[in-house]
């Protein structure tokens, strides 16, 4: 299963709408088997959503995002975990352990995430 994170200086990019880099991670049986960076320079919202779908991304972890982007990306059947903050390694680790819903990984001013275990790696 492919998980994409928007990256800025080794941390989650603050705003998905203007993020310029993605790290795409391939997870199998709870282990990272592949990790590569993909430029995310496309400007148009549709093109951004389509690029994620073309990359085969199933889950997107990102910072703040506007409603327009959320709707478009969800329309491609991609699960979104937004308003996430922190270092990429910590966020990824928390995702694999199912602890991403902790407040330390949430941007301020956002309702706490439902107690869900965002865990990938089954694919």
């Amino acid at each position, binding site marked *: 299963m492919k998980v994409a994170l928007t990256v*800025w200086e080794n941390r989650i*990019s*603050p*705003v998905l*709408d*203007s*993020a*310029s880099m993605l790290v795409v991670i391939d997870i199998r049986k709870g282990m990272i088997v592949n990790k590569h960076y993909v430029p995310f320079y496309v400007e148009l919202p549709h093109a951004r959503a389509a690029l994620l779908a073309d990359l085969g991304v199933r889950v997107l972890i990102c*910072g*703040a*995002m*506007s*409603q327009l982007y*959320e709707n478009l990306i969800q329309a491609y059947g991609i699960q979104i975990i937004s308003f996430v*903050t922190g270092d990429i390694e910590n966020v990824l680790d928390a995702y694999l352990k199912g602890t991403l819903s902790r407040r330390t990984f949430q*941007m*301020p*001013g*956002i309702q706490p995430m439902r107690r869900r275990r965002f865990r990938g790696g089954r694919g």
Partner: protein
Amino acid sequence: MAGGLNKKYSLLSRNVTDIILENISDGVFTINHTWHITSFNRAAETITGIPRDQAIGRHCWEVFRSNMCERDCALRRTMKQGKPFVDTSTYIVNNRKRRVPVVVCTSLLKDKSGIVVGGVETFRDMSTVEQLRKELEDRFHLGDIVSRSASMKKVFAVLPQIADSYSTVLLQGETGTGKELMARALHDLSPRRIRPFIAMNCGALPDTLLESELFGYKAGAFTHATRDKPGRFALAEGGTLFLDEVGDVSPAFQVRLLRVLQEREFMPLGAIIPVKANVRVIASTNKDLSALVAEGTFRQDLFYRINVVRIDLPPLRDRREDIPLLVERFITRFNNLRNRNIAGISRDALAILMAHTYPGNIRELENIIEHALVLCPKGQIEPHHLPGTLIPTIPSPPRTKTIGAAVKSAEENEITTALKRNDYNRLAAARELGIHKSTLFRKINALGIRLPKIDGRTHRRKKP
């Protein structure tokens, strides 16, 4: 004693600053050297939707969440270059996933001894201004139609109501005035917008072909008709059918068209059962249909059937104020289409365009701009980039130096013609021009138009 007083005033001053910060409508936050927020005022809470207790101590990009944070942070520039930046436009994403347009100012934060201890960012919510700007812009735009002329504004005002109805519409206007664009705008504003918009030029085809195109045919209706073919009426089911150049339809076909509009059903060629048509018809013509009715070349009953709601599209020479707006629109469009970067049009070139009479209307203007873009490698469109045919239409050089002079010359021409047409009756001429009679008198004086001694009123009075 003096030290105590200073301390007291210092404390008072700090309190006053705090009160001011809490009561201004601009958001203000400060950061330290590690980019952590150290203060966050009430307006900042309102604009971002983030409570102060959650904002303080967090990284500024986690709270402010602007599209500048990553690539072009104003605070970072200020901290790096040691100078303030004012009025940087950007947007932030608030806690409700809404983009809020803001204008940002940044400066250094120094302590009493002048040592930089961080930065301060103030930001103003521009949502209302943006909304008003958009509304103002929308007043000149409707779909792909752009205009700021009074006559078109009247059309814009009634278009939503017309679109909302199911009535047949007749669009009348010279060639190139945007009849198809108007038909599309009507369709896009109507409840039928999710259904197809089908356009058909009736003037281009002979009767038999027109019939099979509009109504379709059944397999076996004629030689080589091996399978059913749906006509435009069937294709536009639930949507809108635009019949262009309806004035050119032959009298024989007019009867068939009348039947469809009257009965709301049609018969495909070779069919034995009529087909119901749930189609809104928009017809257009560049001819004066009432004159054709008077001549006997257009059926009166069909005329009344399609002339339910009529929209007259004024020619471009009657709405010259739209020329700069249209030029700008075409330059932007061709820049995008051809991947060009033409900055605009020079004053002299625009003056030439303003003075032209445009027999081909907007389509002609569009072609002129396309021609200019082919010849203009970079920068602005200059007079020598315009087609040579336009050059003889330029009045003497001193009069076309400015757009104002070109407009004056055009106004003078229009006023003189309108006065002549109305036997120099000022009131009638003012009505025809769509201006108040005092405005007309003022313009006659300002432009120095010489009038004959008779006027329309005295002439009329003498008549009986």
